[in-house]
């Protein structure tokens, strides 16, 4: 299902989703860590709600993104890239896509177990995935945190790899995902 004949760039849909998700993840990670240190206060309750709304939004975008990725073949990597790097790249991207979906999901599960339903934008009540359970809630909180640390690690790897390709290898890898930058060739 190749959508482009000139397969050197990602589709504009993939590029848009990539950067939207990137910004949202950066904002929500910051918010999440900030909120977790706040004392119990109206501000905390408010910000946790915003964090959840943003998380649900990321989840929706991530599902679309994964669907798009499965139905649109990405530009293939140039042959100049060693085979092991191509495999590492595929593995890292697979893990990243997985985290995009399960990180918000773990937060949703945590909220359900804590007995607090997720109310998207304070309007749409999402179903509780599991019943309220204090012990389970504590474990899911740990899991949500752990998965986020994994996400941070993979994102750092992702960014460093992209920068390495652009500034060290001076190849096309980064520019095919950039919305405005022209191709080097």
């Amino acid at each position, binding site marked *: 299902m190749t959508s482009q004949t000139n397969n050197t760039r990602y589709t504009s849909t993939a590029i848009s989703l990539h950067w939207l998700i990137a910004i949202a993840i950066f904002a929500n990670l910051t918010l999440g860590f900030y909120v977790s240190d706040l*004392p*119990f*206060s*109206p*501000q905390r*309750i*408010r910000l946790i*709600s915003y964090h959840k709304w943003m998380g649900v939004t990321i989840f929706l975008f991530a599902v679309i993104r994964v669907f798009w990725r499965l139905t649109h073949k990405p530009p293939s990597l140039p042959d100049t890239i060693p085979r092991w790097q191509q495999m590492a790249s595929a593995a890292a991207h697979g893990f990243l896509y997985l985290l995009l979906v399960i990180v918000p999901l773990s937060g949703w599960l945590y909220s359900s177990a*804590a*007995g*607090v*339903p*997720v*109310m998207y934008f*304070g*309007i749409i009540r999402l179903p509780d995935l599991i019943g*309220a359970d*204090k012990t389970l809630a504590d474990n899911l909180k740990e899991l949500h945190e752990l998965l986020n640390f994994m996400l941070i690690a993979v994102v750092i790897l992702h960014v460093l790899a992209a920068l390495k390709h652009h500034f060290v290898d001076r190849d096309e890898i980064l520019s095919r995902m950039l919305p405005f930058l022209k191709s080097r060739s």
Partner: protein
Amino acid sequence: MPMKNLRLPTALLALTVTSWAIAEIQIAMQPVPQDKIDIRFVSKQMNVPVEGKFRKAKANVAFDPAKVEGSKAQLEIDLASIDLGLPEAETEVKRPAWFDTAKYPTATFVSSSVKPLAGGKYEVNGKLTIKGITHDVTAPVTVSPGPGGTNNIAGAFAIKRLDYKIGEGTWSDTDTVANEVEIKFKLSLPPGAKK
């Protein structure tokens, strides 16, 4: 001279005691066991309904299933026994901005009248006191017979938390924690709690 000054208070006291005695004769107040009292509340945080409950409460009820209108109820809720499922929230609501449990350990409800409504329901009116502030409240109540001669009483009503200064200061922002709080109660009255 001091004796003379005491005459009126003594008379009033005698009158009060007598009226209490009359009330006692009408229907005797009986305690309801702790595990037969269920008091829950639902508050909305950022429009998300969050339920909590009180683990400890005392209730005295004079109840005659044949003449429900003559019933009386007194309820005393131990506010520090609040269960929110979140320890940090429980610590917070005991502080002065919320219930100030050090100063006001209990909330009380004393019924003043019971009126029959349609469909086997009753309207209970009474005075609710929280944090030293008293307001009239009205709750529709259903009465249904339970097993072994017990009687189940269930009802719900809403209060405005700021009427009782619950959640002052930064917490008075009702966009975060709504002003309206729904209170749901269930009591299972023992068979003996009647005339």
